[in-house]
């Protein structure tokens, strides 16, 4: 039986994170999850709307546009939608926000991150994940990068201090999660435009740590983390005169490879750091079988 969810792409999915949207759609389809894009959705305000009342109103307008549970692939949108749902449990906040909305927020809504949806589909009763996994990621060492907002505010899908949901998925897909000390260190993406110097040093620290952990690649859950670690990687390499060369795949691209989806279906040609080394490794594993 297929699952139907409302899909909230978020602005980045339509621009610098296009391959996240492409691979999200492909993976959901392969797993039998039907996505219906929320009609006329608006930006959630990300981390740039300091007025919390306004930020809640922006998320509420998106939430009332569907009766289905909402899924998003962006950790920032996910955190903002979750925070709004939590704040809207306060009757005063709800009344105030409803003054501004055309469709009123009348009952508590539900939001899921794509990683939850993938795991639910692979772990559903009566399902053997291996029915879906046609290309095990055996031999691939993956650095699980969480960034900050997937599990914050606390009380969500995993520990906000030391989560393991991504390691769990990597293992199900046949890969090996490496011990990655800085997996929760913020990528500083939200301050990157006005404060690039500050962000660059932190990013190098994260990339060096991922490399030291012996990873073949880093996998991420947020388009801003991806922009900072992938598109930014050649810029950082020039700036620090240091070679990194570490492919950074969205969790959906990594899952898609295991599901046997193709390079184009996963938007892999859009990544800045070429994923060729990983594809070769998988190819070698396949021909060695």
């Amino acid at each position: 039986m297929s699952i139907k969810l409302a899909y909230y792409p978020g602005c980045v999915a339509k621009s610098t994170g296009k391959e996240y949207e492409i691979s999200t759609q492909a993976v959901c389809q392969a797993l039998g999850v039907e996505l219906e894009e929320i009609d006329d959705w608006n930006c959630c305000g990300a981390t740039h709307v300091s007025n919390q009342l306004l930020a809640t109103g922006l998320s509420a307008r998106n939430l009332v546009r569907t009766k289905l549970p909402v899924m998003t692939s962006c950790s920032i949108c996910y955190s903002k939608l979750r925070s709004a749902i939590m704040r809207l449990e306060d009757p005063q906040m709800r009344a105030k926000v409803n003054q501004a909305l055309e469709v009123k927020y009348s009952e508590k809504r539900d939001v899921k991150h794509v990683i939850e949806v993938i795991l639910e589909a692979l772990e559903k009763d009566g399902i053997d994940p291996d029915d879906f996994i046609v290309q095990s990621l055996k031999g691939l060492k993956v650095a699980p990068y969480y960034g900050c907002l997937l599990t914050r505010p606390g009380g969500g899908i995993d520990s906000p201090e030391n989560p393991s949901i991504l390691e769990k998925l990597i293992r199900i897909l046949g890969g090996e999660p490496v011990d990655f000390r800085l997996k929760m260190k913020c990528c500083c993406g939200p301050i990157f435009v006005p404060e690039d110097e500050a962000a660059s040093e932190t990013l190098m620290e994260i990339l060096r740590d991922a490399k030291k952990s012996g990873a073949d690649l880093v996998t991420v859950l947020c388009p801003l983390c991806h922009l900072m670690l992938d598109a930014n990687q050649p810029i950082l390499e020039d700036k620090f005169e240091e070679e990194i060369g570490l492919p950074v795949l969205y969790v959906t691209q990594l899952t898609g490879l295991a599901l046997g989806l193709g390079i184009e279906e996963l938007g892999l040609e859009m990544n800045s750091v070429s994923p060729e080394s990983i594809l070769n490794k998988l190819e070698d594993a396949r021909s060695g079988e």
Partner: protein
Amino acid sequence: MIDEIESQKFKKDVLKLAGEEVKTCIQCGTCSASCPVAHLMDNPIRKLIKFVLGGMKEEALESRSIWLCTSCLLCTVRCPRKIKPMAVVSALKHIYEEEGRRCKDSTFEAIFARQIRDRGRVSEFLMSSEFLLRNPSSAVHIMSFGVELFPKGKIEIDFWGERIEGTEELEQIFQVLGDANDVEDAEVEI
């Protein structure tokens, strides 16, 4: 005397936005120790809270720290008094903007907010272009990103900016829930 009234009003305003529990801060410094950008800040988060509780408005609002916060929420997850230190930072940014104060970071937020109000969504092309016009010193790093992303088809050159249908409702959301200074109208038309 006027200073004292101003001080008390500032403290009250922040507490209203960030929560009365801020008063229970024991200055333990867990927030500062958890902050990924603490080493770059002139005043760590713990000190910002001290400024707030002491009614030291200028020290708090003019601290560069409030613009370095990445909103990662680790301080908020860890605070042993269940205070939301990040909400204190948001409150300070909010008051800063509400008073019409401006710096490059608040300009970025105001451009971001105006895009949402007028278009419904944020176009990275329009936003970066406008920020660049206002802050030419950021040209090199914004352009180097453009060089990386444009050939991949990840930047839409969209001078007019597509709009969602619900912009009237968004205007209403900004009017009812926002302040006049959340949004800054463009000084440079592009």
